[in-house]
C-alpha cells in the first residue's frame, strides 16, 4: 500500500471541498484533495445530456430514497461535484433562515452579519452574475403569469460568466463551476488532487484521525490502495456520502439520522406562442412570493427532457398525441415546484452490497405543500396563457381548466408521482448543542480533535434556496476558523 502525507486531507472536491482546499492551500498549507469521481473539463459534455450523466453523475443520476413516495436524487460524482451538473443558481439565504439555524442548534458566531462577508467573497471568487439582457422568453412568461396573479418574482444570479457588451462570445459555456474557479486556484497554490479515488474509511487513534485508507480505480488499470496520512481531515463529500464515510469509520453520533431535502415535482405546459429558447439555458426567473416554503420556476426544456417529464402518453389509443406535443416543443416548457421538505431521513449502508439505503418519508405536510405549490403554479401558467398543463400524477390526463387543477392539487397521491431533488442537506448538523448535532459550531466532529465536516451536511435545516452559495460561504467561514480565525 502506497503512503501519501499531507498537512490537510480534503475528501471531496465539490463546493465545500473546493472552498476548503483553496483557502487552506492559499494560506500555505500542504493540501491533498481526494475525489471519488474523474476529472473532466467543465464543457466535456453538453449540460444535462446523456453523456454528462455518464461522466459526472453518481449512478447515472438514478439514486432513490425509500418511503411512501420514492424520491430520485442526483449527486455529482466528479471533480467539482454538484457544481458541475446543477443549474448554477446562486442565492443568499434569508436572514430569518440563518437566525433560525443559529437558534435551532446553538451555532456560535452565526449572526447574518458574520456570514455576509463570506457570501460577498463567494460572489467575487466564483463569478456570480445575472444574465445580461434578461433571462429569456420562458422566464418572461413566468414573470408575466406571476404578475397577473399579483405575485413577486426574482431574476436569479448564476455562477456564470458572460461576455461583456460588444465582446465576442466566450469560448466555453461560461459555467463557473469548481473546476473553473476554486479547484484550479487550489492547485496553483500547491494543492495536490487525486481523482478516481474512493476513501474506504478514516483511520483513527482514539479521538484523533490520522488519515484514511483509499482506493484508486481507473479504467484499464489495477486498483491501487493508498494510506493517506494527514494532521487534519475535512470530509466534504456531500450530504449522503459524508455521513456514510463517518459511519463506516465508527463515528455515528447524530450522523446520518436527519437528512433533509427539497422535494420537487415537474410538469410541462403548452402555450399558444413560442416560449422555449434553449439558447438561454436554464431560465433564471423564480417566483419568490411563497418563500421560504415554496419556490416556483422553469427548467431547461430540450426535447429529451420534455419527453422524460411527459412520460408515457396517458390516453390509450391516442398514439400520436405525445409526438405532436414534442413537435410543438418551442411552445412547451418544463416548470417546477420545489418545497422545503418536512421529513427527515436516515442514511445507512446496506451490508454486502455496500450501497446507501435512505429511508425518507414524503410526509402528509410535504404533499399538502407540494399540492399548494402545484395549484399556484397552475394558476400562474393559466394566467400566462397556457392551454394545457401535464399532471404531476403519473399516467394522469392533462389539465385544461381551473376545476381540474383544483381537483389534482387538492389530493396529490402518495406513491404515484415522480418526485426528484438535487438539494440534500442536514445529515450531520452543526452547532454547540451536541444533543442534536454531529459537529461543533465550525464543523468539528464531536468526539474528535481534528476531523471536520464542511459541506451541506452541516446545515441544521433547509436553506430554502438553491444551496450551493450557502455551502460555499459556510465552508469558507469554517476553514478560516480552522486556520485561526
Amino acid at each position: 500500500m502506497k503512503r501519501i502525507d499531507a498537512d490537510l486531507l480534503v475528501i471531496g472536491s465539490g463546493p465545500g471541498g473546493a472552498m476548503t482546499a483553496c483557502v487552506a492551500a492559499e494560506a500555505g498549507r500542504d493540501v491533498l484533495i481526494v475525489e471519488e469521481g474523474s476529472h473532466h473539463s467543465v464543457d466535456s459534455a453538453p449540460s444535462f445530456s446523456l453523456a454528462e450523466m455518464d461522466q459526472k453523475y453518481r449512478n447515472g443520476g438514478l439514486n432513490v430514497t425509500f418511503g411512501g413516495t420514492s424520491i430520485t436524487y442526483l449527486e455529482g460524482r466528479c471533480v467539482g461535484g454538484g457544481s458541475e451538473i446543477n443549474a448554477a443558481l446562486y442565492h443568499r439565504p434569508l436572514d430569518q433562515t440563518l437566525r433560525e439555524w443559529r437558534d435551532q442548534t446553538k451555532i456560535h458566531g452565526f449572526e447574518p452579519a458574520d456570514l455576509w462577508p463570506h457570501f460577498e467573497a463567494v460572489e467575487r471568487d466564483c463569478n456570480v452574475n445575472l444574465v445580461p439582457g434578461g433571462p429569456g422568453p420562458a422566464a418572461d412568461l413566468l414573470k408575466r403569469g406571476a404578475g397577473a396573479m399579483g405575485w413577486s418574482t426574482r431574476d436569479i444570479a448564476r455562477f456564470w460568466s458572460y461576455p461583456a457588451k460588444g465582446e465576442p462570445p466566450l469560448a466555453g459555456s461560461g459555467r463557473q463551476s469548481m473546476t473553473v474557479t476554486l479547484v484550479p486556484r487550489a492547485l496553483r497554490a500547491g494543492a495536490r488532487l487525486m481523482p478516481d479515488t474512493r476513501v474506504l474509511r478514516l483511520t483513527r487513534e482514539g479521538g484523533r484521525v490520522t488519515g484514511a485508507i483509499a482506493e484508486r480505480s481507473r479504467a484499464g488499470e489495477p486498483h491501487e490502495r493508498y494510506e493517506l496520512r494527514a494532521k487534519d481531515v475535512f470530509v466534504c463529500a456531500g450530504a449522503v456520502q459524508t455521513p456514510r464515510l463517518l459511519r463506516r469509520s465508527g463515528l455515528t453520533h447524530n450522523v446520518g439520522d436527519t437528512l433533509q431535502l427539497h422535494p420537487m415535482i415537474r410538469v410541462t405546459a403548452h402555450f399558444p406562442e413560442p416560449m422555449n429558447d434553449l439558447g438561454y439555458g436554464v431560465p433564471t426567473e423564480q417566483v419568490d412570493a411563497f418563500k421560504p416554503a415554496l419556490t416556483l420556476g422553469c427548467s431547461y426544456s430540450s426535447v429529451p427532457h420534455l419527453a422524460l417529464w411527459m412520460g408515457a402518453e396517458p390516453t390509450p389509443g391516442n398514439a400520436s398525441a405525445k409526438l405532436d406535443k414534442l413537435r410543438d416543443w418551442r411552445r412547451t416548457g418544463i416548470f417546477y415546484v420545489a418545497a422545503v421538505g418536512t421529513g427527515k431521513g436516515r442514511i445507512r449502508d446496506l451490508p454486502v452490497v455496500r450501497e446507501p439505503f435512505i429511508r425518507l418519508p414524503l410526509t402528509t405536510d410535504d404533499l399538502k405543500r407540494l399540492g399548494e405549490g402545484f395549484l399556484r403554479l397552475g394558476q400562474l401558467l393559466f394566467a400566462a396563457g397556457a392551454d394545457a398543463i401535464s399532471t404531476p400524477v403519473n399516467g394522469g390526463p392533462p389539465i385544461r381548466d381551473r376545476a381540474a387543477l383544483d381537483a389534482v392539487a387538492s389530493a396529490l397521491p402518495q406513491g404515484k408521482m415522480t418526485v426528484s431533488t438535487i438539494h440534500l442537506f442536514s445529515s450531520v448538523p452543526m452547532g454547540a448543542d451536541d444533543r442534536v448535532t454531529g459537529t461543533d459550531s465550525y464543523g468539528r466532529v464531536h468526539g474528535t480533535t481534528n476531523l471536520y465536516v464542511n459541506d451541506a451536511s452541516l446545515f441544521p435545516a433547509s436553506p430554502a434556496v438553491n444551496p450551493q452559495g450557502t455551502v460555499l460561504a459556510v465552508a469558507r467561514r469554517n476553514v478560516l476558523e480552522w486556520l485561526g480565525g
Partner: protein
Amino acid sequence: MIRAIAEAEIAAELGRHDIEGIPFLAETAEVLERRLLGMPKHFAIGMAAMTVLFDGTTVSREGAAFHRLSVPARQRALARLRALPLGPLGNFTTFYDRMAPFIFWSHLEEHGQLDLALATERAGR
C-alpha cells in the same frame, strides 16, 4: 427483454405500432440496460427481477412471453401494467416510461437528427 420494452416504448413515442426504420433502438436498449444496472445494487436487482417476472406475465393473456410479442401486443401489456395500482412497484413502469424516451431523443439530438425525426415521423403507421 429490455430491448423488447424499449422497442414498444419508442414505437409508442412516435405514435406507431411498428419499429421499421426507427434509428437508435439498439443504442437506446443498451443505455437503458446500463442505466438499470448502474443504479444502486439493491434497486437494480429489484428492477431486473421485476423485468424478468414481467416477461412471463403476458403468457396467459397474450399466449407468449412479452419479448416474443408483436409491438402492438407489447404496448397493450405495458398499458395494462401502468393501469395497475402498483404502489412503490410503479417505479418499474416509471423507469421505462421516462428513461427510454429520454435516451432515444437524446441519441437523435446528439446525432443532429432531432428536427428531421420530428418533421418526418408520421403517426399511426
